[in-house]
C-alpha cells in the first residue's frame, strides 16, 4: 500500500517524529544511533505506532532490536511499504 511514498518522504517524516521526541534537528541524521539520540525502547514503540498508523507498516520489538541506526529504520520501513 501507499506506493506513492518515497524514501525521502519517509526519511523526512522519521526525522520529524524524532524531533518531536526531543532530538535536536541537527542531530536527526541517518547515521545517528538511537542511543545517541536518547531514544529508548518506549520511544521506539511509540515510533512504531506512528509508522503503523501512517504507512500501515508493522514494526515488531524484534525488528526494533535489529536496527543499528536511524537509516536502518528508514530503510526497513521503506522496504516494507514496497
Amino acid at each position: 500500500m501507499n506506493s506513492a511514498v518515497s524514501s525521502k518522504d519517509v526519511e523526512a517524516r522519521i526525522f520529524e517524529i524524532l524531533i518531536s521526541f526531543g532530538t535536536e534537528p541537527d542531530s536527526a541524521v541517518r547515521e545517528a544511533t538511537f542511543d545517541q539520540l536518547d531514544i529508548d525502547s518506549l520511544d521506539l514503540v511509540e515510533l512504531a505506532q506512528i509508522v503503523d498508523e501512517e504507512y500501515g507498516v508493522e514494526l515488531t520489538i524484534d525488528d526494533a532490536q535489529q536496527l543499528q541506526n536511524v537509516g536502518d529504520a528508514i530503510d526497513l520501513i521503506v522496504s516494507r511499504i514496497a
Partner: protein
Amino acid sequence: MNDSVVVTGVGAVTPLGMGADTLLAEWSSGRCATTDGVGSCDRFELGELLSANDIRRTNRFTQMALAACEEALGNAGWGTCVPFDPYRVACVVGTGFGGVEIIEREHDGYCADGATACAPACIPLMTSNAAAATLSMRYGLHGPSAAPASACAAGAEAVALGAGLIRSGEVDAALVGGAESAISGFMRAAFAANGELSRTGVCRPFDARRDGFVIGEGAGMLVLESEEAARRRAATELARLVGIGVTCDGFHPTAPDPGAEAAARAIDAALTDAGIAAEDVDYVNAYGAGGQLDDRAETRALKTALGTHAHTVPISSAKSAIGHLLGAAGAVQALATVLALRRGIAPPTLGYEVPDEELDLDYNADGRTLRSQDGSLVGLSNSFGHGGQNVVLAFEAQAIRR
C-alpha cells in the same frame, strides 16, 4: 531524645513560587497564593533540569518533585555525586493520585479513537511511583524506592518511612517527600461532589466561617541522613526529626473520627518517640485544611495530647497560604516546620478572623516570634488524610539568629 535522623536539605515547589525559602518568606509576610479557589504553581519552572524527551516522558507531579529534590540536594551539598553507597540511599515520594493529567489525556484519546490511541509510555506516566522511580533513576539510587499513597498524609508518611529506614540501619540517607498535581476540572468536580471543597474558594482554617479546603498543587522534598552519616561528611544540620507518630482512625472513608482519639494518639506517639513532654512543643504546624469536621477534630486531638499546653502553643496552617497540596501537603508542611523553627517564627494562619466557639486554641492569625530558653525549638507537623490516616512528625532545630 531520639536524634538519629537529621534533615540536611529541603526544597519546595508551591503556589507561592519556587523554593522552600520563598514559601516560608511569602507565607510569613501574609501572602495567599490561591486564586478563584485553586492554588496552582504558575511560576513553576524546570529550567535546564530535563531534556525535551524527558519532559515528554515525565508527568507534572514528577517534574515538581524533581525540581524540589534538586533544591534539597543543593542545600544538602550532595553535589553531582551521591556521597553514600547507592544501595544505602532510599527514595520515598508520596502522592495521592499520581499522573492525573496523563490519565485524563489518555482516556480522552481512548474514548475518541479507541485502543490504538494509548501512548506506549502512558503506563509509567500514570503510576503513583513515577516520581520515586524517576528520582532513583536520575541519581542512580538503588536502596528502597517507594511511593506511599496514603491520601493527604502521603507526603508525611514518606518522611516517616524514609526516617524509619535510616533508624533501622538499612540506609544511610533517604530522599523523602511528596508531590501532587491533581487540580484539573475533573478532580475539582470530584472533590466538590463530596462536599469538601470550599464553595467560597477561600481557605479559612479554624475560623467559624470555614467551608472546606482549597485545592493546590506542588512538591516538597527533604534530604534525611543518619546523624553519623551527616557528621562523617560534615554536613550542615538544618533540624532533627526527633519523633514520629502514625495511627489510623479506622472510622470512615473521608470524615475524621470526631472523638479524634487516634489523631491524639499519633501526636502522643510522636512526643513519646522524641522523649519530650507536651510543654516542650514550641510550635504546631497544623493539618488545618479549613473543613468544619477536620479542624474540629484536630483541635480536639491537640487538646487531648497536649493538655493545657494546647492553649498556649502557637498553631498555624500553611494551607491558608497555599491551599491543600493533597499528597504533597505533609512533606511541604514538614519542611515549612523545619524552616520556621530555624528562623524562630510561627507563620500566621491567614484569614483567621472569626473565632468558632468550639475551637478555642491559639491559631496565630498574625504570626509571631518563637522564644527559646536554650536556642532549641521543637515543632510538630500534623498530617491527616482520607481513610483516617494520621501522621505526626516532631522536629527539633537550633534557631539561627537573624
